[in-house]
């Protein structure tokens, strides 16, 4: 058990926040190559992708040299600035009505819950909202969404379990067009991005929206769980390739993970984070604030 014992004490010393790790790193340390190597690991340990972490460190190295930064505060400030600028690479998403919002993602990330919260938020501005229960696969999925529709006090269109999700989308769009609904939000079944047949199903649903309601602004949002690690990048890449992703909803930020991977997504894929989820209650959703996010990481 020697190994576990060692691990245990090592972990006790590990602090969660970048700032704590940084101050440990800074204490009595020259800003040299080894310093940057460790900094890179600190970034990776907040779930920022390995590639992005390397890029950020390279950029920081440049700035430290260029601006002759020598003390901790200067490095921290420069690092925060680089992170914020990376997040700014993605153009913020403005959702215009009439809007159709399709919500996608892997299993259990919080799609249905997010839709409940989002519906309530959008409806509170005296706008009409309809939700389409197009997760016809998971057991009791439409019951779950119905509870949320009631909480948010919005209309829901649903069908029986096992029916064609595209048909539900079709019905919801028909209703939205007739009633001039401002926001139509489509819940979809969770699917692992590597399952090509399920991704085809998503493409089909997406085509139905484009064909049946071309006047609407069609947004495709991916929900990502903040606890996810490096796989988050694969998730978004596959979904983006299949249907084109317009924005990210980052959920479960009320936990201890901070979702550092979105830095890569904004930086490399230029896909913006639109909303964040911070709990299981109806109002636990807010628009993404990049400065707040960077502070949260530190």
């Amino acid at each position, binding site marked *: 058990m020697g190994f576990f014992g060692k691990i245990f004490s090592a*972990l006790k010393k*590990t602090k969660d926040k970048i700032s704590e790790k940084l101050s440990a790193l800074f204490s009595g340390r020259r800003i040299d190559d080894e310093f940057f190597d460790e900094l890179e690991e600190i970034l990776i340990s907040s*779930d920022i992708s390995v590639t992005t972490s390397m890029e950020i460190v390279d950029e920081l190295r440049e700035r430290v040299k260029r601006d002759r930064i020598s003390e901790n505060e200067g490095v921290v400030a420069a690092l925060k600035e680089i992170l914020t600028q990376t997040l700014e690479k993605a153009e913020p998403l403005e959702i215009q009505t009439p809007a159709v919002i399709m919500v996608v993602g892997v299993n*259990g990330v*919080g799609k249905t819950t997010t839709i409940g919260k989002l519906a309530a938020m959008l409806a509170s501005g005296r706008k009409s909202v309809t939700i389409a229960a197009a997760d016809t696969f998971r057991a009791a999925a439409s019951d779950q969404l*119905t509870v949320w529709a009631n909480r948010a006090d919005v209309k829901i269109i649903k069908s029986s379990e096992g029916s064609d999700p595209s048909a539900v989308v079709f019905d919801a769009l028909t209703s939205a067009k007739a009633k001039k609904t401002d926001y139509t939000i489509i819940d979809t079944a969770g699917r692992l991005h590597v399952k090509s047949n399920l991704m085809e199903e998503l493409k089909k649903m997406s085509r139905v929206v484009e064909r049946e309601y071309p006047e609407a602004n069609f947004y495709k949002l991916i929900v990502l*769980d903040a*606890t996810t690690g490096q796989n988050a990048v694969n998730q978004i890449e596959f979904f983006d390739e299949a249907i084109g992703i317009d924005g990210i909803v980052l959920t479960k930020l009320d936990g201890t993970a901070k979702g550092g991977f979105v830095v890569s997504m904004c930086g490399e894929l230029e896909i913006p984070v639109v909303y964040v989820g911070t709990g299981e209650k109806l109002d636990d959703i807010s628009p993404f604030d990049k400065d707040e996010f960077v502070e949260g990481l530190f």
Partner: protein
Amino acid sequence: MAVFSGLSEKLNHIFAKMTKRGKLDEYEIKQAMREVRIALLEADVNIGVAKQFINSVSEKALGQDILKSLSPAQQVIKIVNEELTALMGSTNSKLETSSSPTVIMMCGLQGAGKTTLCGKLAVYLKKQNKKTLLIAGDVYRPAAINQLKVVGEKAGCEVFDMGQGNPVEIARKGAERARSFGFDYAIIDTAGRLHIDDTLMTELEDIKKAVNPAEILLTVDSMTGQDAVNVADTFNKRLDVTGVVLTKLDGDTRGGACLSIKAVTGKPIKFSSVGEKLTDLEPFYPDRMASRILGMGDVLTLIEKAEQSISEEQMKKIEKKFKENSFTLDDYLEQFDALKNMGDIKDILGMLPGVGNKIKLDNAQVDEKAVERMKAIILSMTPKERRNPAILNASRKQRISKGSGTTVQEVNQLIKKFEMSKQMMKNMKGQRSFRF
């Protein structure tokens, strides 16, 4: 066939510059271990765990003789792989049992896959002729009870619920019911919760006190990142869990979280959940997981298989032929047979790093029948034709197609393929196949 994964390629590069042969020395090990560390981090292994692991592996590797049969890179990978496997524990942990009913309690974060897992375990136990009662203890998430009911129905077992009552009461009453009605197992579904939610964590402790479960299974999403240590550590400290189940392993995550979890809890990983069907539950295989974490698919198994089916000698012979440009259709035929010996093509492709994800396996099916037809074509040729396909004129082709029960078009295709692979192999000259 020369498929290299990122890590092995990097290690090869490092050891290419190796000066002293024969022993692994400190400088090279340090270089190699940096690459291993990055591979671990990319796989979501916690940074503290990764560092500790590297230290202990470096000690082991230092001064080790390099086995004759392996390159230094292979040797390092072998050590790392063995250590990883050993760390993740022995294969195939079984479920604990107690006097009936054996109570199993679920716990974990939101969305980890607990409810589905309840159904999967019920199906797994049913195969052993055990009768299971599912207890609906998630009273918080909308429609969670309904979900368990549907799952229970699919699994063919009874579900006990008391609506949105008190979860501790529900667990107690459910376990009582299982006892009085002679169920072998009672599985308690619980609501997902954050490890930092003190009220809800206390609730789990109360459920544990009330029903004294033989198993407390921590369900963890295999895509979890660095935070896995915090989650697992807290759940384990508060509940003293008995085992871990990894879910959603049918994705392309490298799954390093499981190493972190094992390291902080020391508890066995009992099952892997690999799909949405209730039968998609497998025992946990530490060796497979090790290569997955290193990003090598099942490359080690593949190498083993490859070595079994194509002997080193055979490989050398083929290489030599390429160099001399004397590779013939006879050799081509031999390759088909070797390929067949390796087993199902799809399995093999699945073992290769990267292939499982990027190239969609569904489309990568090699038609065994087509291979048979190609073999038949070659077998219908005369030795002379096999040595020198250039002499194949129209009438010869017609004869071959008749003899092999194929069409002239297929014969032409085969020749084309043969020429193409000859060309390809020529371009790869210098690179050694089956080396990584």
